[in-house]
């Protein structure tokens, strides 16, 4: 196959491609959200143990999954940018960070709202919630470091190194938090029961797919602005129709 992948790693081509792709991810995402929420609320039966409050997991679990995967993807892009010196990869990494941090926040927020009726406390030092909190800190560190370095090249490379160190550390952190939690007799109520109803699975997977598409759409939209910002002195940006008024 002779597709020239590097063609799309040029910011000028990717800018255009991303602009075309955004609606193709955004609208299916909205549709899947609607389907997932509909199934989650109207089709899925009430959980025997957790009552109606369990319906929070349809948004909680997908956002937790997304926040973890987005960190790994971000670190991957950052590493590509660091090793092969491709500008676009670093831009993608910095475009992914805010979305990942927001998913981590949603996961914490919904976890707290789920925990209050289930555990009787807004915050329980459950291994997964604690790891999620630390993940949010890692995102914030990445964003803060990137924001406080003025030279974009140094900012990209320094935060890339941080993201890589962070992603090496994430499994260690997760393991240590889990270890700590078992020592201190953590919560016994789990988010997912032993057997999930088919409708519950369908709702969860639709929302998960919707979240993926949303993350892709919003990242692509954000990376377009970043590309324009970084490349503003180039010829192709000057010739863009939207930059002429």
């Amino acid at each position, binding site marked *: 196959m002779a597709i020239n992948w590097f063609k799309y790693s040029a910011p000028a081509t990717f800018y255009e491609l991303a602009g075309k792709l955004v609606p193709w991810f955004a609208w299916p995402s909205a549709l899947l959200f609607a389907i997932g929420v509909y199934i989650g609320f109207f089709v899925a039966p009430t959980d025997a143990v957790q009552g109606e409050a369990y319906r929070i997991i349809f948004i909680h679990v997908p956002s937790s999954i997304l926040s973890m995967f987005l960190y790994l993807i971000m670190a991957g892009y950052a590493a590509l940018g660091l090793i092969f010196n491709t500008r676009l990869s670093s831009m993608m990494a910095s475009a992914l960070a805010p979305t990942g941090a927001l998913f981590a926040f949603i996961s914490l927020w919904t976890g707290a709202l789920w925990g209050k009726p289930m555990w009787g406390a807004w915050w329980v030092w459950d291994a997964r919630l604690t790891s999620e909190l*630390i993940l949010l*800190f*890692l995102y*914030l*560190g990445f964003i*803060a*470091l990137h924001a*406080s*370095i003025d030279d974009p*090249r*140094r900012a990209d*490379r*320094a935060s890339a*190194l*941080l993201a890589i*160190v*962070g992603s*090496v*550390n994430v499994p*260690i*952190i997760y*393991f*240590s*938090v889990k*270890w*700590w939690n078992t*020592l201190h007799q953590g919560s016994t109520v789990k988010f997912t029961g032993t057997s999930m109803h088919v409708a519950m699975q369908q709702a969860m997977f639709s929302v998960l797919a919707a979240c993926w598409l949303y993350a892709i759409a919003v990242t692509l939209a954000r990376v377009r602005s970043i590309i324009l910002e970084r490349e503003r002195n180039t010829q192709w940006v000057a010739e863009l129709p939207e930059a002429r008024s």
Partner: protein
Amino acid sequence: MNKLSLFGLLRLVIGRDLMLAMRRRADVLTTLIFFVMVVSLFPLGVGPELDMLRKMAPGVVWVAALLSSMLSLGRMFSADYLDGTLEQMLLAPQSLSVLVLGKILAHWMLSGLPLVLMAPVLGLQFDMPVQALWVLIASLLLGTPVLSMIGAVGAALTLGLRGGGVLVSLLVLPLCIPVLIFGTGAVEAVSSGMSAVSHLSLLGALLLLALVLTPWVTAQALRISME
């Protein structure tokens, strides 16, 4: 030019940093005093019940050690950066990772080792049993070098940035959480009559991992920051 062996190089860097630090002894003392103060504040904050204090002691000592090792991170490279020595080090034919390792070890001797030596005294403030004190010393001895090593990465990444001091804590503290967990876990295990070996060996594993990876990562970070 005569060729330096790796250990000769290490000794040279450590000796130089120690000598420089001895000329500014106040810096070393400030960190230590901060450590003592933070630990002493806790009984004042939560009340003097010995039962509770005994339970809290390892956590308090470890968190204070974590915070005070953050304090001195800014100094690890900044003086060398400002007077141009760091640039010379980057250009030197010797391995930058080894140079960095030397600086990390010197930093640990100046900021970590005093904390380890001070910790038993503070542990007595919290009425810790002797056996737990020994484990506390062991866990700090294994753990504080890791703090210096992870901290070195953060210090190198934030070199010369405005507001670097706060930023470096923001970057490094989440990465240090495993050390904190295993460090306090070791002491708690002994206090509750279990063996601390598993915790200490995990700390040792972290130390080895950090020893292998962080000098190299820090060297890369320095190259990025000095471009």
